[in-house]
């Protein structure tokens, strides 16, 4: 291989270019300056966030839309530590990311010098893998491995921590074309014997059900799942992470399951005789509404063997890449089946969640979501935060080829705006909407500046009820209505905050105002913020 003499810092940028990275998210500091100095010489777009954690979330949003590992950068010590929540959020939702952090000089490691933190140690529980790059000669191999590990198998974040002196060292650089990690060979195709067993079980099933999870968004998973469901006439329910894999108006779709799911989906899960889990890790919030049963055949298809049988006993485990396994299943299917009686039974469980109008000066949040939903183009990306806003969005936004991004596993507040910035950077032609509450907005509003600075025209919805509403609901129900530390008194007027950032904004306090504001929001080619006035004691669970 032909090598070129250069600094590690320059080699790092060469690695990024070789991986096709055109946009990175980060926040500089002393220990990562050699790398930033080399970034100056490249065409790589650097999006400066206003807090490191948001660089991580933005990379997450970017990765979820591009389908490839995205890059977040921070300096040593506090910069790196601020990224941990974003790393953990990505880890829980299997989002491919490569995180680059600066570190103090190699010989100073362990001496508690200025801005030193053991980031590989601190982040260990939340990374798929990590490297402390001490030997400059390892640079190319480590980057190649990091991108490969992050973007293959069960996706996840990989951390590369690089000391300052290593970044300044000179090496003979060439980016490797091939890769071989003997201890990491994720499976692709499912075991033939198990595929046969799954087909037999499906043929015998009278009440089969597909549970679509977030894993379907890798490769062609979602479209193959739709074909698989169609060929075998199998009803589909979705986890929160799987929302959008099945179009909402598909007659075989019965909605989101779980604690905050709908009646038809939870009925389906509790009355099916064969449950086919596709890229769903059976999280506790998803199956909390599921009753223990002995007469159920569970087929679990997942890339990660450790997820199979972890939270639910499984009869037929299939480990493999969903695109490959669904291909195998579709090929192995015999005569198309049909399940009209089962579908009729489920259709009877569909309920039209009626919206009661709010009192004057407010709008029912469900009604607002539906007005917004009607106006959204089909391929829009909706990024929901965590809390009541997330539940209202998940239950009322419909999908026709668009995407729904949220922090499903970790439930990280403050995810939506930075993730929307990342998603918009990855797909500038799509409408990208961040939906948050007044609690989560105040955790991330500094990122409005990022959007403005980098011309990233995201739209922001703030559902304002002056409460940490989800926690308040818990206190109302489980703590005898003793409301503790959930009032957001003292909060600003959010339209004014937007105005201060030079962002056009509208206050919505009636259905009529909603129609007008949503139209403005969609037609604007600049960032736009809507503050939605929600009655203080509005609930998610009725």
């Amino acid at each position, binding site marked *: 291989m032909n090598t070129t003499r250069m600094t590690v810092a320059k080699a790092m940028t060469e690695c990024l270019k070789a991986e096709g990275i055109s946009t990175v998210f980060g926040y500089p500091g002393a220990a990562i300056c050699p790398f930033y100095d080399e970034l100056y010489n490249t065409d790589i777009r650097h999006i400066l966030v206003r807090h490191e954690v948001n660089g991580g979330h933005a990379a997450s949003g970017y990765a979820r839309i591009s389908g490839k590992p995205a890059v977040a950068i921070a300096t040593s010590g506090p910069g790196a530590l601020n990224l941990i929540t974003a790393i953990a959020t990505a880890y829980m939702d299997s989002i491919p990311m490569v995180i680059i952090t600066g570190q103090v000089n190699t010989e100073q490691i362990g001496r508690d010098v200025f801005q030193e933190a053991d980031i*590989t*140690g601190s982040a260990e529980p939340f990374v798929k893998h990590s490297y402390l790059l001490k030997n400059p000669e390892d640079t190319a191999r480590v980057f190649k491995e990091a991108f490969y*590990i992050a973007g293959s198998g069960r996706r996840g974040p990989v951390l590369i921590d690089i000391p300052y002196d290593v970044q300044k060292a000179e090496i003979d650089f060439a980016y490797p074309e091939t890769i071989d*990690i*003997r*201890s990491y060979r994720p499976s692709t195709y499912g075991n033939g014997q198990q595929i046969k067993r799954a087909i037999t079980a499906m043929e015998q099933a009278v009440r089969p059900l597909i549970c679509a999870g977030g894993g379907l968004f890798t490769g062609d998973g979602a479209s193959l799942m739709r074909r698989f469901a169609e060929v075998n006439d199998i009803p589909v329910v979705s986890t929160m992470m799987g929302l959008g894999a099945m179009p909402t108006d598909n007659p075989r779709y019965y909605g989101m399951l779980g604690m905050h799911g709908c009646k038809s989906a939870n009925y389906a899960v509790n009355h099916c005789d064969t449950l086919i889990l596709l890229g769903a890790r059976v999280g506790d919030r998803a199956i909390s509404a599921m009753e223990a049963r002995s007469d159920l055949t569970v087929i679990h298809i997942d890339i990660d063997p*450790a997820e199979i049988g972890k939270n639910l006993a499984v009869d037929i485990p299939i480990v493999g890449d969903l695109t490959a396994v669904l291909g195998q299943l579709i090929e192995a299917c015999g005569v198309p089946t049909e399940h009209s009686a089962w579908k009729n039974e489920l259709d009877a469980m569909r309920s039209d969640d009626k919206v009661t109008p709010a009192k004057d000066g407010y709008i029912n949040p469900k009604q607002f979501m539906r007005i917004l939903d009607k106006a959204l183009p089909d391929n829009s990306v909706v990024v929901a935060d965590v809390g009541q806003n997330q539940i209202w969005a998940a239950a009322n936004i419909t999908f026709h080829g668009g995407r729904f991004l949220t922090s499903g596993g970790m439930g990280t507040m403050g995810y939506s705006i930075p993730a929307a910035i990342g998603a918009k950077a990855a797909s500038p032609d799509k409408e990208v909407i961040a939906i948050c509450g007044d609690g989560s907005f105040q955790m991330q509003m500094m990122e409005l500046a990022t959007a403005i600075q980098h011309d990233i025209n995201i739209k922001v919805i703030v559902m304002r009820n002056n409460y940490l509403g989800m926690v308040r609901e818990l206190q109302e129900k489980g703590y005898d209505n003793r409301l503790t530390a959930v009032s957001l008194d003292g909060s600003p007027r959010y339209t004014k905050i937007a105005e201060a950032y030079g962002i056009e904004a509208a206050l919505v306090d009636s259905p009529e105002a909603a129609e007008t504001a949503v139209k403005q929001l969609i037609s604007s080619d600049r960032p736009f913020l809507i503050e939605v006035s929600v009655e203080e004691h509005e609930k998610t669970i009725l």
Partner: protein
Amino acid sequence: MKHTISVLVENNAGVLARIAGLFARRGFNIDSLAVGVTDDERVSRITIVADGSDYTLEQIEKQLNKLIDVIKVKTLKNDTSISRELVLIKVGCSSRQRAEIMSIAEIAHAKISDISNTTITLELSDSKDNLANYEELLRPYGIKEIVRTGTIAIQKGEAAVRV
């Protein structure tokens, strides 16, 4: 139930911390842990004795396999493997007691590693159960210190856990 797990890992910095951390955060209990390099110096073997149900064991194996540095994981069965632990036991020993203790050592196939006017140090390698027996035999003389290595284990016959 006790399980003996033989784990081959890349001999990289931090790999032991990753494994120990995994056990701690997932609530798996480690009874003992022994680490040493294999015939290939790039590969280390970690032998872990863990306590838990079959479900726990399955999770331990799967979660270990997810670590990138882990090359191979194998749970060894009691009846098809040999397990050993090395122990150094220092007991109080006057010159009058020396013969007595040395006869116990002989039965236990222990080596006398060190001797002084007031102590004797025995070196024993055996299964955990046998070691416990000898410990009881020596207890009346006054155990001053015990140092154990943790269990290591190997399969009987041709079977081997190799890269």
